[in-house]
């Protein structure tokens, strides 16, 4: 039971680690790292769910009768691209925030904002 769901345990642990980093860390770059881990755990989740025991890659060849489901893999390729785009936009924003505020610590930025108001 515990070992059979090994993949899913990894997914849950990774997800929580990522989520925790996003919430707990004040550094903008670290937040993005957390976000990436969070997304990656979902990718692993999709990939492990499509694995069929004893199945191989879905190639048409003699002697192969069992295939893994290729659809989630394809979906996850799309999701990975989306994830990369998100990370890129996030990092670009972090660069511009650094230029504008001179800091990438959340609490310092918040302090400067409060002064502005």
């Amino acid at each position, binding site marked *: 039971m515990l070992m059979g769901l090994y993949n899913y345990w990894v997914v849950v642990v990774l997800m929580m680690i990522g989520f925790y980093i996003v919430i707990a860390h004040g550094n903008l770059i670290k937040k993005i790292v957390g976000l990436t881990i969070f*997304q990656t755990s979902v990718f692993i989740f999709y990939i492990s769910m499509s694995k069929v025991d004893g199945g191989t890659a879905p190639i048409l060849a003699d002697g192969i009768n069992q295939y893994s489901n290729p659809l989630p893999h394809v*979906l996850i390729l799309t999701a990975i691209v989306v994830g990369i785009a998100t990370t890129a*936009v996030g990092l670009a924003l972090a660069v511009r925030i650094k230029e504008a505020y001179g800091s990438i610590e959340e609490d310092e930025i918040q302090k400067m904002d409060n002064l502005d108001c």
Partner: protein
Amino acid sequence: MAAPLCLFLTRPRLVWLFALIVSALAFLFSSILLEQVMTSGTIIYELGGWDAPWGIEYRIDQLNAFLLLIISAISTIVLFAADTSIRKEIPEDKHTHFYTLYLLSLAAMLGIVATGDAFNIFVFLEISSLSAYALIALGKDRRALWASYQYLIMGTIGATFILIGIGLMYQMTGTLNIDDLSRRLPEVAQTRTVFTAFAFVIVGICLKLAMFPLHLWLPNSYAYAPSIVSAFFAATATKVAIYLLIRFTFSVFGLSFSFTHLPLQLLFVTLGLVGIFVASTAAIYQSNVKHLFAYSSIAQIGYMIVGFSLTSVAGLTATLLHVFNHALMKGALFLALAAVMYRIGSTQLSQFQGLGRQMPLTMAAIVVGGLSLIGVPLTVGFVSKWYLVLAVLENGWWPVAVLILLGSLLAVVYVWRIVETAYFKPALAGSETIKEAPLTFLIPIWTLVLANIYFGIDTRLSVQVAQAAAQSLFGVSP
């Protein structure tokens, strides 16, 4: 589809014209679509010629067509004013990018609404969000960057939640097609996986929706984005999220599952009402008018949630009406603010002193929009509140009806603050030079304001469509 083309056009003026034409065409097509759907029922378009369960299909029923119409209409009207506004607020060399992002965002929102495939929804959602982050970051104030960053974090978490939910659903049913999902989910409805999927999807959508208490990203994003962007998103983005919420709870999971197995109704009514009160009260204390209307948006979302949680045809009709009407009011209000921004370069309430005399037409538009927010008769706000209260009474929830009316009183307070400063305070020294907004603003603003009044008096079109959509949702779901 037209966004990449924009990059090739280098002259900003040309790009604007091009974007306007594209958006107008989209509007035209969606009106035709609505007409067709109303008369002949659901239209299905299969991408690449593959049949539905295998290929991806676009599926348009009354609900989608209605939403498509709202989004493309608002986008066209807003774009009309865009040229003048962004000339002032965004550096010249970024204009092309602005329109590219804008069209991308528009296309993605239309895509979310039109598609009949759960994974496609996620992809379109991310496209629209990513372009939204970039658009918000174009704001002049450096706080726009910070707002955009916060939105990015929250938005991505929301989208990833939706992705997890969709994954779990796929695991249980082996399909991603919405129609197929709705047929196969009831068979496995009692498993814990489906409950988890439902929870993930709903929380994810509520993050995108800025439903109280998940609304923290919204006020700053709207307040510091370029004015045109705030007008566009305030009127459309949350509507798309409402659509997703309705689509997932009613079509995909089915009414009986969503509302009988889970205390969703109670949860949503409570959160909706608390949202109305907290956000309206917060709106009263804002010193920036854009902030004020952003909080009022959250309150209005509260009304939609209350209508939605009634799970009756009448309640859903009220929600859809409010979606339509709120798009009209907030479009008008934020465009008027864009005009103010254009003339005096700020939307601080203190700067509004005496504007009632200097920009009479713009301020009159804000007043009409404000009245509509309150729900005064002869405006659209009245129509949707009327239907909402009727629907609530139909369920026999007296206290809720009273609370909705009390919430409207709070709207009176924050709208009055603007009216008071604009009309009854003496003009600031040195502001004699402020003139009425240019015509490119006034035409779209007043188109929306007149629409506000027109649909407040002649409610046949909007009510009919909303009712048809609500009924079809209840007809489809078991």
